[in-house]
């Protein structure tokens, strides 16, 4: 065979072969909007991790009674202001599994502080899947099953106790239930406000738009916290703690809807001018169909993103108000209510574990911020 002979394929020539898509490409081109968003979100690793953290937290608030070793109000007079207890694994060089030592308390007569000393003679193993304090699960079902319990005839305060000898770990767990839901309920209310008012302004324009815009401007030009303070000072003192809870949620939501309303309005105005809307209109679609079929899907993802970015400010707002004593009141316990006990510098100096709830606040705020960032980046998958 001649070495210079060219290779000629005798397969039939397909002129479309260049334009043809590989199966992967085809998958991308045919994917729905939400599918694309999901793919894009998955690439943002920090957002995925934050999302998982949030998911864990929200699942855990469903089972607070089971997870926490003590009840919200179980106090131990002999263990007030007890520092966090160390969990150990080895007793005198041999492995025993997780256990704690008993502690005894003496009053130091010079400083008037309680001093806890560990009695290291006998390991007290922590119990798992056990029965402990009895509770009413979500106030409905009686039970006493706990994931983790203190050892028999002993105490276990993983994060210390407060001035009434109540276990901080359990209280933080219970506090999560309130702190995390207040963000969600609040955002639901402000979502409703924001969509309604922003939608009206964006859809009707004209004087409706003008009024809504001015209102937003006024509310935004007011520093949030003083206004929150003023509004929560209005709540009557004789309201039950539960009513106060809803009152505070509504107050937080009342100042928060402006951002969402603005987002809805500007998106609505922009999308209304898109060609596909004109096309739908020309084909005789009714406004309702245009809004639900063409406009809403276009910006619902943006709304979810901006909503998840405004949850943190609500959680922080509640924490700040409760810290000042204007927000929630015991027996309703949120992280802010817990921090209210750490108001004074002596607490920070003597019982620093009382400010531990703030660690949870920071984690939740960070997680919402990162998750929201990821969602915002993913919200427009065609970019």
């Amino acid at each position, binding site marked *: 065979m001649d070495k210079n002979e060219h290779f000629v394929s005798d397969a039939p020539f397909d002129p479309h072969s260049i334009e043809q898509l590989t199966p992967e490409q085809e998958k991308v081109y045919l994917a729905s909007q939400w599918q694309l968003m999901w793919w894009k979100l998955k690439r943002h690793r920090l957002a995925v991790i934050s999302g998982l953290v949030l998911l864990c937290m929200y699942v855990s608030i469903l089972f607070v009674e089971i997870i926490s070793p003590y009840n919200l109000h179980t106090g131990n007079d002999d263990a007030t202001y007890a520092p966090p207890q160390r969990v150990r694994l080895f007793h005198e060089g041999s492995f025993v599994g997780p256990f704690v030592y008993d502690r005894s308390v003496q009053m130091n007569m010079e400083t008037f502080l309680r001093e806890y000393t560990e009695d290291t003679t006998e390991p007290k193993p922590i119990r798992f899947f056990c029965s402990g304090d009895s509770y009413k699960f979500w106030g409905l079902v009686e039970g006493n099953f706990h994931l983790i319990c203190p050892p028999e005839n002993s105490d276990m305060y993983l994060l210390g106790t407060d001035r009434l000898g109540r276990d901080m770990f359990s209280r933080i767990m219970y506090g999560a239930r309130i702190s995390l839901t207040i963000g969600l309920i609040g955002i639901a209310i402000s979502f409703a406000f924001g969509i309604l008012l922003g939608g009206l302004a964006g859809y009707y324009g004209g004087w409706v738009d003008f009024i809504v815009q*001015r*209102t937003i*401007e*006024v509310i*935004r*030009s*007011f*520093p*949030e*916290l*003083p*206004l929150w*303070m*003023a*509004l929560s*000072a*209005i709540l*009557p003192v004789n309201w039950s703690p539960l009513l106060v809870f809803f009152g505070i949620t509504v107050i937080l939501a009342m100042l928060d809807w402006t951002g969402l309303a603005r987002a809805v309005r500007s998106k609505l105005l922009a999308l209304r001018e898109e060609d596909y809307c004109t096309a739908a209109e020309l084909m005789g679609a009714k406004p309702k169909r245009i809004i639900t079929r063409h406009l809403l899907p276009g910006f619902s993802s943006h709304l979810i993103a901006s909503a998840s970015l405004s949850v*943190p400010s609500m959680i*922080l707002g509640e*924490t*700040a108000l409760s*810290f*000042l004593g*204007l927000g929630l009141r015991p027996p309703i316990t949120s992280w802010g209510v817990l*921090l209210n006990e*750490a*108001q004074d*510098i002596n607490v*920070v*100096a003597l019982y620093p574990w009382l*400010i531990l709830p*703030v660690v949870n*606040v*920071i984690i939740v*705020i*960070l997680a919402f*911020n*990162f998750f929201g960032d990821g969602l915002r980046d993913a919200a427009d998958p065609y970019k």
Partner: protein
Amino acid sequence: MFFYLIRRILTMIPTLLIISVLVFVIIQLPPGDYLESYIAELQSQGESVNEEKIQYLRKEYGLDKSMPEQYFTWVTGMLQGDFGYSFEYELPVREVIGDKMILTVLISIVTIIFTWIIAFPIGIYSATHQYSWGDYGLSFLGFIGLATPNFLLALIMLYLANVYFGTSIGGLMAPEYIDAPWSWAKVKDVLAHLWIPVVVIGTSGTAGMIRRIRANLLDELQKQYVTTARAKGLPPGKLMRKYPLRIAMNFFVADVGNLLPQVISGAEIVAVVMSLPTTGPMLLDALQSQDMYLAGTFLMFLAVLTVVGVLISDLALAALDPRVRLQGDNR
């Protein structure tokens, strides 16, 4: 520029009017008024109520009139510099608030300057070194600042300063200056005490500002004129200074509108924790004891501070950027 100024000030008037209505409604909303709770308190202590004084106060401050009338008196009074009467302190509001307002303004301004000084270089660094370790590290620090509640940071700072510097840093000045008239020594002392609240209040705003500067500058750096300038061989430093930075500057000035409400909110709660002699602790007291004119004046003052601050930033923006003053305010 002149017409822009006029128009901008004119649009401020309705905003302030609505705010004043809002504030008035808020301070009127709690059931009863201060005098009623005052009488109840006196009676519960078994003291006799000075009917004449109550009647006098009620008349003097128009508590017997209708709501719109009271509102009108309040607003016109404020315009003439009469802010009403503080029941709690039994003094005209103007005498109670004294230099608290000045200190609030001072703290806010210093905090904003602090935020700028910190946020601007970090934002530029993060944008020019996108996805580097420095960028990640600084952004992370910023996020921590954003997520930590101000009041807690204040507590921890108080504690640390107590342990490491051995000073009590509650308050804004050393005890001997509290009632002293303003002097150079007092000013220096205030400045020495000022940095902790400023750092504490500044942290949350700084984080947001860094993120916004970074995003803005990144947008700008991707534009074609930057590529062109780079292709023509402009040194990177000069390129940054000449073009993207100048545009980022505009945004930087305009961002005060976002920053100011946040700074003032932060200042209030930090002031309560650190017992600063600013409006914070007194506002909290006034709200809790229904001392309505005092609370109203504070709220109104904070709102005016924000609105005026935003106005100044808008004017500075118009001076910087001809597009704004020529097109009007269609931002």
